[in-house]
């Protein structure tokens, strides 16, 4: 691979190992003397632990040790929360429950055996005597008097009570000419389902008293820091390695109980231990996403002008606070309620509620899909109410274009955008008038065809640390990068970002290659090993290129600056006359005076002829802390056809025009958008976590939870507009979550549009065949009743 440029669709350097089966994920790690761990988990959503009898299990073949929560209570500490809202209730979260279990899947004991089969067998033999307690799973009902209490520290199960707003909603709706629409919005609980489950290998070295933790995580450095904090281990004694990570989507963004337990057990036993999460275990033990119950209102004028939005929300937190749980339904939700619109009045109230369910935290988009769903669904609902086209209503209310920051209703500053141009491009690609004509014909023929739009904006590039800290963040959210030029001119880059499929190795090598003029094969990208590089933050929130890429750029810039001084010194010129282009230093106007980057690297380490006072070497580390978030946006258009007789929804067309700022590798960005769209479509059409009232997860396997398969999707048609971000020198915004944020509302708006002439105005996700079929029957019944009443008006009055 030669030198590349910014913006080129370079094939991924990760792929050769992954297409040949040579990728090394956690489960592929084998260490000498490694024992295997199986967790004993509660089958009840809420119960007191009366007794744990491990006798039978201890006598099972291959069993090495068994530990209960009570055994390890002192060493394990409590799992942390990294985002503190005012008056947040923080009940203790023991990695192994020792008094009370609070959700199905709460771990109570751990069995260590020679083989995984033996560990699983023995875990079955651990007898736990539970006193079953009443459970609550619905966030709204959990706040009512008399509901079962999940934690005594949180009366009415309220973990936080948070509001944000601007303007005066109550004043707006006093005007009798203002039209207000209102709907119950349920953003159903989702299960992330990365195809690789979680897994941990913990390797404690009793000689050096060092712990190495291999874990499938998005945040190795934070895991290292948090593990040290909760267990009281000196941080320098902990090394965390995130090897190949098989997908994450937010679900591997925390310090998990199993990481702490495996580390402590390895230390207790003085040997390595491995735990690989079974899929059935992942369904209950890995965080879930979404799960909002709310009432949303939108107010506006007959001419289409939107005056405001209001939402009262119950956000399910699950049984304990996961690391970022308080952030997701608060700021990452509330701050997005203005969308790309003027939206002068916003009123948002959120209860974060404890329930006897698996903890809920970030899932791809994390708060922003939920908010965008409210805004975009209610906008269409409002447009239907006033009898206007949803495109016209969007256009009427859209923010004007801006290149360098526009402060919106809630006080945040969108970085740059031309929202109307973006929408126009999508509409042109789609040919909106032609579709409406086709829809009219289809309806005459009795077919149900609908179109739905979503014009979204989101917060990416987390985060300006001081701003985040003022909102409750417990850690800095900058990113780091070290660029080490070797004496031969080859390059190693260590980035604090930590990929789970995003292609960082390709992207960072491409970025470095394009800036240094060094061929990609001469650049090694390291990540995900806390002993290989300086502290970093990790990969989440579409932050990697906007913050991590910007950090690499910063280090490369320092490298070039130092190399330029060295080159100038050797070529007996002044640095201001030395140019650097295509990997070569030249003295202006003197054609024969050039040095390659590699020659300068050699000179930097040879140190025979350096400028006076200059340190040898060519090795720079940077920490980039952005001044603002980035704000990607876009317009997505979905078309569905619905089978009248079965209610089955077919997604038949999908057009996406996104603006993620400058694009480093279009192939990778397109791929991420495709995947994001599929996850959003999954929420709209197939996926839902379903609990019984007593807290049993009915959708607890891939047989019961409808993961989208290849045959439900059309070929997505995608394009871009490019509005560079002024927040970082690369002009990038981030693209990891855009598709997911946009797709659910676009598809649901299409479903409602297909049924709108029958009188259907709203439906909660997912639009399964049954739900759609019932909506059609109900609408037809309503129409029949109305016709009957019209034929015989007297009878109705009697």
């Amino acid at each position, binding site marked *: 691979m030669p030198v590349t440029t910014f913006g080129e669709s370079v094939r991924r350097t990760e792929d050769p190992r992954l297409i040949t089966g040579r990728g090394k994920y956690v489960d*592929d790690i084998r260490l000498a003397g490694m024992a295997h761990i199986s967790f004993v988990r509660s089958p009840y959503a809420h119960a007191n632990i009366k007794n744990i009898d491990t006798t039978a299990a201890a006598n099972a073949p291959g069993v090495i040790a068994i530990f209960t929560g009570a055994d390890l209570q002192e060493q394990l500490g409590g799992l942390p929360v990294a985002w503190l809202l005012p008056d947040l209730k923080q009940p203790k979260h023991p990695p192994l429950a020792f008094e009370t279990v609070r959700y199905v899947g709460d771990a109570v004991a751990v069995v260590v055996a020679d083989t995984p089969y033996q560990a699983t067998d023995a875990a079955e033999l651990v007898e736990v005597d539970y006193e079953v307690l009443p459970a609550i799973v619905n966030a709204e009902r959990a706040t009512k008097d008399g509901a079962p209490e999940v934690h005594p520290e949180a009366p009415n199960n309220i973990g936080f009570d948070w509001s944000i707003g601007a303007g005066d909603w109550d004043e707006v709706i006093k005007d009798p000419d203002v039209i207000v629409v209102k709907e119950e919005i349920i953003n159903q609980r989702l299960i992330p389902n990365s195809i690789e489950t979680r897994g941990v290998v913990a390797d404690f070295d009793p000689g050096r008293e060092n712990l190495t933790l291999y874990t499938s995580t998005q945040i190795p450095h934070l895991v290292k820091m948090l593990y040290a904090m909760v267990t009281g281990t000196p941080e320098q004694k902990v090394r965390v390695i995130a090897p190949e990570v098989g997908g994450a989507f937010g679900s591997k963004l925390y310090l998990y109980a199993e990481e702490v337990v495996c580390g402590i057990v390895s230390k207790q036993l003085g040997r390595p231990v491995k735990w690989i999460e079974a899929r059935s275990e992942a369904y209950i033990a890995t965080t879930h996403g979404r799960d909002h119950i709310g009432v949303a209102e939108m107010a506006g004028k007959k001419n289409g002008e939107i005056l405001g939005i209001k939402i009262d929300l119950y956000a399910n937190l699950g049984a304990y606070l996961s690391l970022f749980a308080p952030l997701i339904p608060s700021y990452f939700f509330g701050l997005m309620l203005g969308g790309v619109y003027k939206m002068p009045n916003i009123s948002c109230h959120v209860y974060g509620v404890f329930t006897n369910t698996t903890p809920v935290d970030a899932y791809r988009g994390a708060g922003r899909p939920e908010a965008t769903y409210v805004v975009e669904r209610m906008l269409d609902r409002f447009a239907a109410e006033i009898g206007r086209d949803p495109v016209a209503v969007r256009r009427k209310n859209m923010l004007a274009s801006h290149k360098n920051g526009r402060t919106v209703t809630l006080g945040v500053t969108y970085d740059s955008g031309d929202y109307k141009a973006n929408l126009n491009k999508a509409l042109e690609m789609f040919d909106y008038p032609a579709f409406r004509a086709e829809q009219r014909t289809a309806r005459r023929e009795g077919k149900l065809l609908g179109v739905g739009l979503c014009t979204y904006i989101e917060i990416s590039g987390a985060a300006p640390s001081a701003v985040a800290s003022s909102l409750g963040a417990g850690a800095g959210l900058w990113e780091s990068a070290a660029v080490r030029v070797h004496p031969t001119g080859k390059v190693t880059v260590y980035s604090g970002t930590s990929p789970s499929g995003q292609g960082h190795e390709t992207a960072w090598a491409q970025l470095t290659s394009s800036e240094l003029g060094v061929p990609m094969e001469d650049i090694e990208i390291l990540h995900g090993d806390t002993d290989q590089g300086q502290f970093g933050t990790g990969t989440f929130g579409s932050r990697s290129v906007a913050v991590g890429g910007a950090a690499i750029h910063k280090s490369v810039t320092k490298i070039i600056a130092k190399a330029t001084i060295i080159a100038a010194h050797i070529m007996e010129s002044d640095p201001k006359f030395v140019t650097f282009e295509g990997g070569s230093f030249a003295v202006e106007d003197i054609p024969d005076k050039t040095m390659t980057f590699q020659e300068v690297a050699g000179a930097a380490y040879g140190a025979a002829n350096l400028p006076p006072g200059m340190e040898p070497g060519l090795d720079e580390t940077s920490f980039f802390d952005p001044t603002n978030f980035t704000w990607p946006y876009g317009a997505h258009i979905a078309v569905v056809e619905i089978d009248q007789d079965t209610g089955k929804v077919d997604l038949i067309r999908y057009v996406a025009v996104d603006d993620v700022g400058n694009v480093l590798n279009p192939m990778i960005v397109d791929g991420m958008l495709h995947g994001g769209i599929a996850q959003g479509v999954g929420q709209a059409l197939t996926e839902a976590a379903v609990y019984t009232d007593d807290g049993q997860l009915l959708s607890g396997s891939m047989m019961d939870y409808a993961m989208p398969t*290849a045959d439900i999707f059309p070929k*997505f048609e995608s394009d871009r507009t490019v509005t560079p971000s002024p927040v970082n020198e690369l002009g990038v915004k981030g693209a990891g979550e855009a598709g997911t944020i946009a797709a659910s509302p676009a598809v649901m708006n299409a479903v409602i549009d297909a049924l709108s002439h029958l009188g259907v105005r709203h439906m909660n996700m997912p639009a399964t065949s049954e739900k759609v079929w019932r909506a059609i029957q109900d609408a037809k019944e309503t129409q029949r009743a109305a016709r009957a009443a019209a034929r015989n008006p007297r009878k109705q009055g009697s």
Partner: protein
Amino acid sequence: MSTEITVTVNGTEHTASVEPRLLLAHFLRDVLDLTGTHIGCDTSQCGACTVHLNGEAVKSCTVFAVQANGSEVKTIEGVADGETYSNVQQAFWDEHGLQCGFCTPGMIMTTEALLKQNPNPTEDEIRTGIAGNFCRCTGYQNIVNAIGVAAKAGR
């Protein structure tokens, strides 16, 4: 209780003593150390563990190792000819048909079998053909593209 089995994997014969309940997937990974075959679920849904058993694609989590006794198994490690990738592997790389790579071995094994059965599939046939394999990263779009490209290259 153990049973001795002999299985030819990627052309090499292996004899081992295994528990009757040992899954083929675990035999490949844990006994033969062929970790390219991945396990993504416990209900035979995800397809990450797909291998070829006597030339047919099977989910190796749904086959006991003892059932493979006397059989020929091909895994992802046996797909390339030395350092030369198969058309399918090459197309997955060229078309960006993978992201995290965890579903990829199973997806490639399914595709190899699909194209053997149907060397000239339509897009619908491709989508239906891989509906037994989950991918959470790609939205399947570039996988479908890759399979189309591989089919073309094979003609």
